[in-house]
């Protein structure tokens, strides 16, 4: 469906270790920053989307957040597609606006996942998030990273993907984070650092895994018509797609995912192809995720993702800069909101606001989120120009 929506404001809280802010405070910080960017105020917001948090129990997250921010929304909902929630919120806001239910939707997500407890508590909370099946997987003792390690091991077996190629993903995305003043981990790393870091669950080292962070992100979505009257430069939603091929990882083949479906539908709705994409914000919960998704989204053939990430191709200045803000591997990962930072970076790139990380003349950005264990997928295409 053609929604003609635009993102007209984006904002982030401080990201990293932010022990002085609660989950709701982080979300309020991000929301205020997004409204300021759009030149709007809280009273202009008549729609609200958010995601669940893991650190505390909110009986109806959209209601809790709306009340905290003082919004009386004409439309509100809680989106839970795990890591795909960030991308999905944008499309679901666009649908609500296209239906006439509301005009201006605040999408906001994030929490103090790092500071709320110890890191081991955070790891346990992520594990309890349901990525592993409680009866048929959890009793065997997999970490969340183990579920992705199974994907990596199988990908290596089928296609000859190497640990060095996985490391290249971590090194590139850390280099991008080093250019992002709000990123959590900014110290550059080398492939030797990744390969020499602690083996967590073979073949994944600790530096192949996402970090755990505090932080929140927010975006304001409105109609393309209304966007013309606002002071900020909009990023237009050109297309979107969803995909789901499994729920848990234990009962499925491991190397082709629902990103095939979400990518195909996003390109079809936008009338674009992978060669039109200037910059791709790919979900990067683990290094292997990036390789599998580049294949499934059509940037290279199945099995060629390992070679694709070599030689600087996914770095700034390369043929397809990937996850230019530093992603979940280095930029910050506060749980379900983590994938929302990828959306914000896609917006920055097509607006030309990405500073040192700007991809020259980026006209089309792809944003991809996945949730579960490469289970549920949402792909967005964002453009500098709206559709004719």
């Amino acid at each position, binding site marked *: 469906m053609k929604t003609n929506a635009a993102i007209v404001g984006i904002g982030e809280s401080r990201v990293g270790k932010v022990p002085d802010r609660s989950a709701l405070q982080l979300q309020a910080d991000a929301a205020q920053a997004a409204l300021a960017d759009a030149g709007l105020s809280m009273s202009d917001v008549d729609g609200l989307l958010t995601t669940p948090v893991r650190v505390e129990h909110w009986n109806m997250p959209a209601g809790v957040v709306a009340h905290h921010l003082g919004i009386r929304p004409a439309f509100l909902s809680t989106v839970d597609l795990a890591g795909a929630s960030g991308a999905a919120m944008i499309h679901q806001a666009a649908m609500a606006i296209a239906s006439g239910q509301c005009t201006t939707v605040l999408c906001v997500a994030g929490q103090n996942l790092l500071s709320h407890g110890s890191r081991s508590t955070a790891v346990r909370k992520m594990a309890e998030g349901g990525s592993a099946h*409680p009866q*048929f997987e*959890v*009793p065997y003792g*997999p970490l969340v990273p183990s579920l992705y390690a199974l994907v990596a091991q199988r990908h290596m*077996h089928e296609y000859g993907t190497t640990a060095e190629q996985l490391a290249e993903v971590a090194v590139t995305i850390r280099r991008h984070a080093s250019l992002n003043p709000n990123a959590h981990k900014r110290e550059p790393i080398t492939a030797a650092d990744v390969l020499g870091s602690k083996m967590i*669950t*073979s*073949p994944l080292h600790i530096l192949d895994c996402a970090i755990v962070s505090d932080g929140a992100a927010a975006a304001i979505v409105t109609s393309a018509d209304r966007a013309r009257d606002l002071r900020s430069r909009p990023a237009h939603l050109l297309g979107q797609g969803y995909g789901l091929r499994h729920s848990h990882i234990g*009962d499925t083949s491991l190397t082709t995912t629902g990103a095939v479906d979400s990518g195909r539908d996003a390109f079809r709705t936008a009338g674009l192809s992978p060669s039109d994409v200037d910059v791709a914000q790919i979900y990067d919960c683990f290094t292997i995720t990036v390789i599998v998704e580049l294949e499934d989204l059509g940037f290279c053939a199945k099995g060629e993702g390992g070679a694709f990430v070599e030689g600087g191709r996914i770095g700034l200045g390369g043929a397809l800069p990937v996850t230019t803000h530093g992603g979940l591997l280095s930029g910050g990962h506060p749980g379900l909101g983590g994938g929302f930072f990828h959306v914000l970076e896609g917006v920055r790139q097509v607006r030309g606001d990405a500073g040192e990380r700007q991809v020259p003349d980026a006209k089309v950005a792809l944003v991809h989120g996945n949730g579960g264990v490469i289970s549920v997928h949402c792909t967005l295409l964002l453009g500098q120009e709206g559709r004719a």
Partner: protein
Amino acid sequence: MSERPLPVPDAATAPYWDAAREHRLVMPKCADCGAFHFYPRTLCPSCSSSRIEWAACSGRAEVYSYTIVHRAPGPAFTAEVPYVVATVKLHEGPHLMTRIRGCAPEAVRIGMAVRVAFDEASAEITLPVFEPAGEVL
């Protein structure tokens, strides 16, 4: 050592765990189209039939993928590291997650032939695990 997380069988899964306690591996099988599936569902994923039965499996499988876990997900598993979490492809078709035991973790390979064994984790719960079948190594 804290207690290991064990499955809590429910109406949909009790036949699987009952059989495992008797050292039998069973899988849901569609009475209409004959397809096996796993994990248990109410409707057959191949034909949407609700006529699902539990059928005995040979216990023969091959390793589909594996990981050697070096860092335990919680105190219950600390004493066991390093251990091998794997997904295996049963002779009958379905995949399932399991442990590989009976060989060094480093000896596990994708494609290795394995057969089911049973780990009596508690009086109520027995976990199907897999061991090298000794045919291909």
